[in-house]
């Protein structure tokens, strides 16, 4: 029990559980299954972008990808345009969205590397440019996703969205990459001490390149999935992921100072955030108050779970 409580990710799951119990206490158990299904469906997207963001943040202070929302928006448009409502083009569309995200990630890295711009500003500036490309490219875009694709993103097995299964497998993969693969260990090493990592022979720049490319690619995939789930692309489809991708990483127990990552915590934190919104919605809280409470709870959770050493 003590070892369990010392795990940083346990708190995010406990938080999710408390919020969930409060919700079903309020509804007296009505629609419990529906709440869980909806929460899992939405949490999946946050988990995927959150994982990408986690790898970037783990690289060390100052590393963060602020271009995710624009990236997601563009990829959603690319996926819908390439699929063009045709079931046969689903795989091609997904690949195109992946490529779009990958290109964004590579561009971000080039800005950081060649112009030596701090990642925050580099990804911020690139997000402006991506946003414009998306506005121009996706103008008046009203292509529905192919029926088979929309079904796939919404399909459930005993109330659990199939995407949730896929994403759990993805998270397991991410955890293995992080703890067992040379690449993952290199990310952690760079986050702990970039100079020591470099002296130890870690190819620092290659790892950084791969990490930004990975984060971009995950953003691209999420864009395509969101377009399927919400049955259409839009410029602002990814807006909420700027805040939530960073929030789930930190609430999940990953160190903002870098060098310490936590994959299971992302699931707990994503479920916590989604269930929190569900709870406030079932309580019938007004939009303004909902924002205030969300913010206060996030700050409160971080204060309670925080106390990490050597941050920014």
């Amino acid at each position, binding site marked *: 029990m003590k070892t369990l409580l010392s795990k940083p990710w346990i708190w995010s799951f406990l938080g999710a559980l408390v919020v969930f119990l409060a919700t079903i206490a309020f509804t007296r158990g009505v629609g419990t299954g529906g709440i869980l299904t909806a929460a899992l469906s939405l949490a999946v997207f946050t988990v995927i972008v959150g994982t990408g963001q986690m790898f970037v943040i783990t690289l*060390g*202070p*100052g590393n*963060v990808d602020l271009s995710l929302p624009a990236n997601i928006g563009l990829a959603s448009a690319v996926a819908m345009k390439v699929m063009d409502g045709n079931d046969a083009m689903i795989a091609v569309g997904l690949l195109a969205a992946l490529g779009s995200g990958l290109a964004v990630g590579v561009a971000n890295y080039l*800005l*950081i590397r060649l*112009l*030596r*711009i*701090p990642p*925050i*500003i*580099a990804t*911020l*500036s*690139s*997000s*402006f*440019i991506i*946003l*414009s*490309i998306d*506005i*121009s490219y996706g*103008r008046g875009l009203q292509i529905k996703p192919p029926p088979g694709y929309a079904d796939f993103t919404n399909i459930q097995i005993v109330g659990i969205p199939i995407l949730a299964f896929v994403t759990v497998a993805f998270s397991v993969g991410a955890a293995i990459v992080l703890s067992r693969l040379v690449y993952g260990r290199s990310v952690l090493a760079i986050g702990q001490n*970039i*100079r020591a990592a470099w002296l130890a022979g870690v190819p620092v720049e290659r790892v950084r390149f791969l990490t930004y490319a990975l984060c971009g690619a995950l953003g691209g995939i999420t864009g395509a999935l969101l377009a399927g789930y919400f049955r259409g692309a839009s410029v602002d489809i990814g807006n909420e992921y700027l*805040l939530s991708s*960073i*929030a789930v990483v*930190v609430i999940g127990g990953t160190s*903002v*100072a870098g060098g310490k990552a936590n994959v299971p915590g992302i699931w707990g934190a994503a479920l916590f955030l989604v269930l929190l919104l569900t709870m406030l919605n079932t309580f019938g809280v*007004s*939009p*303004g*108050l*909902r*924002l*205030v*409470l*969300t*913010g*206060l709870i*996030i*700050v409160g959770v*971080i*204060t309670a779970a*925080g*106390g*990490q*050493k*050597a*941050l*920014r």
Partner: protein
Amino acid sequence: MSLGSAQAVGARPINWARLMRALLPALSLGIVVVAIASLNQRAISYLGFTLMLNLAIPIALATLAQMFVITINELDLSIGPFVGFVGCVTATWLHDSPLLGITVLIAAIGVYVALGALIHLRNLPSIVVTLGMSFVWQGLAILILPTPGGKAPEWLLALMGFKPPFIPMPIVAAIVIALVVHFGLMRTSYGAVLRGAGGNGQAIGRAGWSLLRTKMVMFGLTGLFGVLSGLALIGTTTSGDANIGNGYTLLSIAGVILGGGEFVGGRVSPVGAVIGALTMAMAASPLLTFMHVPPDWQVAANGAILIIVLAARVLISRKEANA
């Protein structure tokens, strides 16, 4: 990479590259003004500048607010919604019952001071705390003013609408603000301590200064300038809107960096930040409109301007390092 290592400890001989680096913010502003002048002669006039720099004062104040937290190696991602919140309070309570309005605004600054203390005591990442607070300010703004409206107080309208002789109001205001902050932060001994807390907090702590107090002071100053920015904004736009400040988070960070500030190490420049804010304000829309950049691409152009200036700075810094 650019973080962490204190590259410039101790005095260095002044060289041309370093001078160029210091002048870069002014230079970029100059280029923008020249570009506007060559595209539209009439814009370079008393009225032209007054109109083009319409929103420059709130942007400059928000940029300075951001600069204070950046000085101590933190970042405020909630400054935009905070400016919006202040705007809503200004357009409603400050207009209808000034005493209540003033109390709320002072309390808001108090919240910032408390955040500074919380971030220091619990060693929290400011990015996440302010991210959470951005929800809070946005929510409060919506609660106070669910739909755009309200009215700016008369005295504020009079202040912002003031027309000094010869030099347009925004320019006078920018110079005054920049000088005040410059002397406070760069020329006083406590200002040096505050910057030192960002450069080497441990050393400042060992020297007997309270790091907790420096954080509280700097966050308090951020709150104060955020309030001033919100006031100036409503004085210009005359009515409030919960979303009015949302773009300011990014604009303010960009302004600080354009103005020569660094993310870590307490290396900031108040004068540079104000110039950076003016550059962003002018480049953001007047220049692009004159250049007939289609609205779709104006956002991209903003990003491109930021990248170009930063690229120029890297080139100069590289020269500086070699010299």
